[in-house]
């Protein structure tokens, strides 16, 4: 059974058929049904998935047979003369995000239940098509196919914000599309470059052997040795990274996000914050780091600093917002700064922290956007000053929002803390490439750190405090105090459909916070795969400095062989 293909295309195709055949009133039920079927398929795929990280199989790409770690793999030569194939497959990294996507897809339908009243059919069709784009982005392992799905994500969201958004929606949607398209164009150029330059130097023959293909698996294979042609290629790395960094979004490329989030309908914000931003982080871990380890190491200091700036900057900007939704949007900038910080710390703890942070952000920020949406639906405003004392007549709502706020603040015991904790821990651990610039006898070296990592960790920790400031102020202004605004007195508490969504996210937040071991075990193979190329590069540089391991915790196989090559 072509399981992954079904998971990817079911939402869009079913959506198209339903939009043509269903009566308007029934469309949302049908959409919900499709999302649930999709989730069941994903769960089936997850259950038949080998999470141990030891899975390897022989697979064919066009005429070649290669070893691959991707599971549930499907391969169709699509345009073989151009090296383009339809190849989908899942590993631990993509599987985690696919599950998140399927779950948030259902929430996306539920939160639109009563808030979308006009042109329902189109709305739910776009929501389902968006789901297809996202699933495809996570599951494609041919970079051309990846590009197609990456662009496919954009179109439904363009219509969703443009049609069903609030008053400044046209500006927001244009900004969002132009920003993302600009990134996509450079990404496409980089991908064509990768197609033409994919190969490895053959020492026996003394020539570079090129493989003309867009297959990610083939690229991994040709670039995995020490003769890959992508070494020292800064341009394609940067082009890819900028495209992904716009999606993350990394400071200073973030300015589309507050507008897009604020103007989007609730479902748009939830999917945008919950999943779309993650495609950026996912793509960095998937493509930038393993294919361009040299460039990644070279740019790591810059990206790390930008991440730290994003963390503090996002928090500071959030403090001065007066619109609840904008505040949550800026908190996204701050939280996603942790993700890039974790990824570019090149350390298993930080990398798993970054993946977890993305999941956490998917839970807590989606929850906050849901909450904002529920308020907005009742009062049609999102200004702080209109609210106060809502805890009095909406106690369930207040309690569930509290859990989301605390998860976002990073309270220990809930999920948010573990992601930030691991990222901070990992970013402190010294990576020797940065030591080169430092004097090893410095006071920071005694801490097992460089002065650089020390500053980074300190800056990031400040972000943790600020996070508590703005979210608590927001919460207290809205829920605490006297219920003195006449317009708020008649508000009714959540109905089961509404609190069900929030309660589900709250339970997920608690579960990850209290029992993190399974999820860390599931992430471990993904972090290993992503970091091994970087570890190989670093290992050669640090061996003579007397360090045991370049990247703590990542053991490189065939190390003697590697060192022999290096000399």
């Amino acid at each position, binding site marked *: 059974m072509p399981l992954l293909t079904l998971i990817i295309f079911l939402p869009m195709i079913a959506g198209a058929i339903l939009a043509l055949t269903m009566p308007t009133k029934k469309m949302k039920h049908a959409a919900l049904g499709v999302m649930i079927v999709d989730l069941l398929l994903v769960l089936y795929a997850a259950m038949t998935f080998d999470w141990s990280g030891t899975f390897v199989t022989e697979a064919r790409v066009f005429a070649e047979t290669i070893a691959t770690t991707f599971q549930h793999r499907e391969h169709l030569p699509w345009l073989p003369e151009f090296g383009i194939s339809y190849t989908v497959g899942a590993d631990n990294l993509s599987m985690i995000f696919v599950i998140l996507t399927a779950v948030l897809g259902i929430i996306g339908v539920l939160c639109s239940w009563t808030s979308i009243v006009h042109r329902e059919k189109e709305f739910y069709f776009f929501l389902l098509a968006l789901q297809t784009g996202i699933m495809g982005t996570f599951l494609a392992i041919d970079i051309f196919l990846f590009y197609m799905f990456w662009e496919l994500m954009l179109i439904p969201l363009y219509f969703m914000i443009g049609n069903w958004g609030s008053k400044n929606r046209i500006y927001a949607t244009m900004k969002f599309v132009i920003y993302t398209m600009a990134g996509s164009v450079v990404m496409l150029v980089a991908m064509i470059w990768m197609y033409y330059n994919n190969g490895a130097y053959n020492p026996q023959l003394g020539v570079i052997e090129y493989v003309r293909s867009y297959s990610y698996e083939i690229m991994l294979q040709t670039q995995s040795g020490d003769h890959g042609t992508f070494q020292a290629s800064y341009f394609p790395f940067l082009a890819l990274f900028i495209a992904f960094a716009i999606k993350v979004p990394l400071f200073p490329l973030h*300015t*589309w996000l507050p507008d897009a989030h604020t103007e989007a309908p609730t479902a748009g914000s939830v999917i945008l914050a919950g999943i779309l931003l993650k495609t950026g982080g996912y793509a960095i871990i998937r493509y930038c780091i393993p294919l361009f380890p040299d460039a990644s190491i070279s740019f790591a200091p810059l990206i790390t600093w930008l991440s730290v700036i994003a963390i503090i900057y996002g928090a500071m900007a959030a403090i*001065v917002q007066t619109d609840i939704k904008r505040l949550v949007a800026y908190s996204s900038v701050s939280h996603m700064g942790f993700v890039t910080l974790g990824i570019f710390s090149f350390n298993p703890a930080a990398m798993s922290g970054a993946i977890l942070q993305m999941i956490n952000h998917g839970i807590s920020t989606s929850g906050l956007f849901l909450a904002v949406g529920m308020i907005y639906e009742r009062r049609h405003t999102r200004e702080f000053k209109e609210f106060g004392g809502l*805890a009095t007549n909406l106690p369930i709502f207040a309690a569930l929002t509290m859990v989301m706020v605390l998860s976002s603040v990073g309270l220990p*015991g809930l999920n948010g803390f573990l992601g930030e904790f691991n990222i901070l821990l990992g970013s402190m651990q010294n990576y020797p490439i940065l030591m080169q610039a430092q004097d090893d006898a410095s006071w920071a070296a005694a801490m097992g750190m460089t002065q650089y990592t020390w500053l980074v960790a*300190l800056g990031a920790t400040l972000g943790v405090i600020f996070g508590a400031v703005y979210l608590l102020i927001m919460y*207290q202004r809205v829920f605490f105090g006297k219920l003195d605004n006449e317009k708020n007195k008649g508000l009714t508490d959540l109905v089961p459909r509404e609190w069900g969504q929030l309660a589900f996210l709250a339970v997920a937040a608690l579960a990850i916070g209290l029992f993190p071991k399974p999820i860390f075990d599931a992430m471990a193979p993904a972090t290993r795969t992503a970091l091994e190329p970087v570890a190989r590069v670093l290992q050669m540089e640090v061996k003579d400095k007397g360090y045991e391991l370049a990247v703590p915790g990542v053991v490189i196989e065939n190390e003697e062989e590697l060192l022999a090559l290096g000399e």
Partner: protein
Amino acid sequence: MNPAILAIVVIFTPLVAFATAMLFCMKAHRIAQGLILGGGAVSVVGAFLLLLGGPSETQSIVWLSSGSLELSFGFMFDGLSLSFGAVVALITFLVQVYSIGYMHHDPAKTRYFALLGLFGWAMLGFVYAVDLLQALIFWELVGLASFFLIGFWYEKPSASAAARKAFLLTRIGDTGLLIGILLIINISGMAHIPALLDAETGLTTMVSEGTLTLLVLLIFMGIMGKSAQFPLHTWLPDAMEGPTPVSALLHSATMVAAGVFLFARLHPLFMASETAILVVLCIAIFTALMSATIAMVETDLKKVLAYSSIGQLAFMLAALAAGGLLAGILHLILHAVFKALLFLCAGSYIHHFETNDMREIGRRGGRRMRWTTAGLVIGGASLAGLPPLAGFFSKEEVLASLSHGGYHLIWFLALFAAFLTAYYTFRMVFFIILPDRPLEADATVHDSSPVILGPIIFLTIATVLGGLILGPLAAILLLDVPHHSLLSMLPAILCALAGVFVAWWDFGRSRATRRGFVGAVPVLHRLFSRKWYVDDVYQAVFARFIQLMATVLHRVEVDLLDGGADRLADVTRWTGGWTARLQSGWVQAYIASGVVVVALAGYFLGSR
């Protein structure tokens, strides 16, 4: 029984009670109340069974492994956690009983009791924690419970502001704690407390003294936040906005003591750094003096007690830093008992008179509430350090440990702080029992109900007999009982008596001015009544600084980054508009430009 199972029962019963009450009993107040009290009772029985079982091996399981790091979840059963765990469970239960009476008329009773359950879980989880990260998690959860309970009456803006202030100030300290823990894990690769404390293979053998100083001072930041030491102390007086039983439980007896507990828990690490010891001593003694001077001019009954808590916590920290482990822990436990007593008495008055002003309580006949007044006097005498009450023994140990450690200046200052403590405590007592005008024959003044008086009487007896625990406590902590001659105790006793006498001279005797001796120096009086201007400085510097910085950054966002992107878009639009003009439909122009292009092309090609 296996102590780990017992510990799970002790810690998690309150959580189960909390969750059940929160989820199913929002309307059924009585059931919720019963659940929480039942959970509290189970915890008390379990904690005392653990205590009777004596110290045993720690037990833990792997909770999280990432990279090469393993973090564990488990319980420590040494004298420190067993003794303090029993005290925490007991006082939590007593306060829950007391709250039945105190919160009788509150419509949100269920939420209140449920939060007490949440607090019990978090606090007990912290006390028995075996891993630094586990301790941190429960430490933060304790802070969360405190946040909710301070802001329990969230309709009051002052209450919700106080809750936020408490959360943020403790969190500033916790950032230091978090960095410290991260660094410890980074250096040693572990967070298991017994392994870190090990004299042969622990943290002290891995790092130089300078590094260790930095590590323990970072941890001390967390302690300063939680145990309200200068300069992070300002949240505690504000926290008195919460219901009085909460003040008794969290903000004097147990939660704020968590910082001191952590200090005692990591005592060997602090002892390995001379600099850290000096820093802690200086901060502690300054906090003790400062809080005592503020309490001298405060008229809000609860705030006087709050400042006295800050001072007594400083005493504990000073004793621990001077090496007096037994002294610090003894004062920790006994202070929990008599300070809870004082707060419960204060609550009894406040419940009846509905005011926090102790002068007014005295004028309206506070002393007619006989049992409460007896508790207040005995608790106050204990706080002042009068023999033979509990506070006398522990304060005596604290002072002795300071002089044994050779810190004579600190010892002298501590004696002075003890004198001030006795002074302001009896100022409070005299305001209530000897009001400045004769009482009217008001028949409505009567003592509180038995559920309120029960815990008060229990704690009064415990305060009287508290000194007896010295021997058993030393035994369970595996420490020696020090013997002091009467002569060495004399300074402390004299200071306490002098404090009481001066208080009587200023406030008690019939011709007293009731202004206090600081009233004679207006500068000092203003300094003390403005609380040493700490809050004003915070307001002026930090709050404004953050607001300014945020505004500046916001301008960067709107004008520079976002504006820049919009200008870029404008350029594109403008270029587009300009090029569009080329498509003018004017045929002559097309032909002319065609001719020019062909001519230029011909010229360049021909010149090749």
